[in-house]
């Protein structure tokens, strides 16, 4: 019988996810409380780094999915 691990329980994974959401929310709120020194104007936009990170990540993955369609080959492609 395999040992039961903390992460094996789906409820605990939920806890991790809620933790992540909470941290994200806190970081957005933190935007109000410090002096921004920026190089570009858009850095001052509300939560710029947050949504930039989110959009960058999603667009990266979506583009890569398209790229995969073009570039994917069988594992033994070069051996043929």
């Amino acid at each position, binding site marked *: 019988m395999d040992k039961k691990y903390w992460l094996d329980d789906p409820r605990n994974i939920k806890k991790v996810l809620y933790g992540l959401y909470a941290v994200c929310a806190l970081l957005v709120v933190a935007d109000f409380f410090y002096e921004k020194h920026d*190089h570009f104007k858009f850095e001052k936009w509300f939560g710029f780094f947050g949504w930039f*990170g989110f959009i960058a990540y999603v667009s990266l993955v979506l583009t890569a999915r398209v790229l995969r369609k073009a*570039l994917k080959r069988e594992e033994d492609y070069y051996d043929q």
Partner: protein
Amino acid sequence: MINSLPPGVILILGALMLPLLPGRLKLAWMLILPVLSGWHLWSLYDHSTEIAFELMGCQLQLVQIDNLSLVWVAIFHIAAILSVLFALHVKDSVQHVSGLVYAGAAIGAVCAGDLITLFVYWELTAVSSVFLIWASRNERSYRAGMRYLIVQVGSGVILLAGILLHLRDTGSVTFNEAFWKLLPTTEGYLLGLNSPGTMLIFLAFGIKAAFPLLHSWLEDAYPEATVTGTVFLSAFTTKLAIYVLARGFPGTEILIWIGAIMTAFPIFFAVIENDLRRVLAYSLNNQLGFMVVGIGLANFVDHPEIAKMALNGTAAHAFAHILYKALLFMSMGAVLYRTGTINASELGGLYKSMPWTTAFCIIGAASISAFPLFSGFVTKSMILTATADRHYMVIWLVLLFASAGVIHHSGIKIPFFAFFAHDSGKRVKEAPLNMLIAMGICAVLCILIGVCPGLLYGILPYSTEYDAYSTSHVITQLQLLFFAALAFTVLKLAAIDPPELASINLDVDWIYRKPLPALIARLHRTGVALGDAANRLVLAGLMQISTWIKRQCGIQGRFGGNWSTGTMVLCAAILLGAYLIVSYF
């Protein structure tokens, strides 16, 4: 006495003695060599020793340890010790010898004060390191090693051609100053890139630095090396290239664009790659991009202050990068060593059986993702700040995008698919003790640099007041990191995240692995066919001529038959007449 030895030679000669030593003595010798070499280099630096001689009219300088090369000398020795430690359990002497010779050659190369010495060590790194790939001892690694060797030696040949042209132009092969200081300036020149010689040298450096389109040797060969060989490979070759670019071409504007492309395009490949060591190779390529941007920004002519920060950033990032990249390759090496596979599609749930490796891998992932308190956070931001100070908005956005990409493939994908994700059911032993110690030291250094950046800043080429831990930097970086993680979660829950599939993806190496060999084979076939046809044609012609001669000279033929006396006399008269005419002229 020891001070008369050139840099790196202790490692190279010491490694060659390795196969002669018995059992435990060999292990001790392997660990002592990098320490001895480090002490040797320190004493060369401390006494500002010069080892110089003349070769065919060229002044060769074997020792040049200044503020710039010192960073590389230091990190190369640390990397050598850690790689040796990680490989200590390996029984294969070939790997030990080639790993140490390779490290010695790389150290010799960063200490080279002239281009000829650089060239010699440059080629030695190529020739010695290929054995780390071939040591996998299978058909795939043999072929990948061959391709690697051709590209690396090729870059050396281009370097030599560039050096010779440069020697013709300037009469000197010194490499203690950037090329733009060595050459007379001309209108509208790119810093350093103002002669055919320097352009060839730049190209040679670019191949080794894995510039876009010249990059695929890296992603092709590194993942085919042995478990421990890849750790060696990840440290030296490309960072040597970064060093020579930093010394030879600081402030060359084209590097900013090349570097930005380098940070961005490999991450798309990393997202869909299944071989986790290949993911790390793409990620390595992406990290080199940041350093290349830093070198491009180091324009000491027009922006000296920003240049100092940019070059500091490049040096610091190279230092930190070697450590966390080695750590990540070590952790994936340990997984490969224990499970026999490194394909994400076959892994998962390994945190249960390899908890230490998991923890070390996460530290490496946090470092490369530039999480506050980890090494990447205090180094990469110097390059981003320098970019912003020079108002390169597009470049800055690309770098920020690439930073989010790093979080995907190295920060999340590597640890998640290997150690968590769906449980593959694999239950293996934890990594061997020597591997764990090597990973542990790497992890400690990653955190140490992150927590006490002053230690690293103290050895950078220029003194710096840079403060990575401003409130603004910490919060914005955390926002970037956590929202990228949030994006991962959302995509994962929506099942949009690309699944790990047992497949490979085409890259630039496809050109010289598929169509080019096919084209050559086709040309060969066409050539053979043409040759055959020509042969047949010529042969048939000769046959016809010979039958004609045979017929004419035969007993029945025009020349062979009996001629009448009248005809003979006529012929003799014509011949004599012709002779008479000719003799008048």
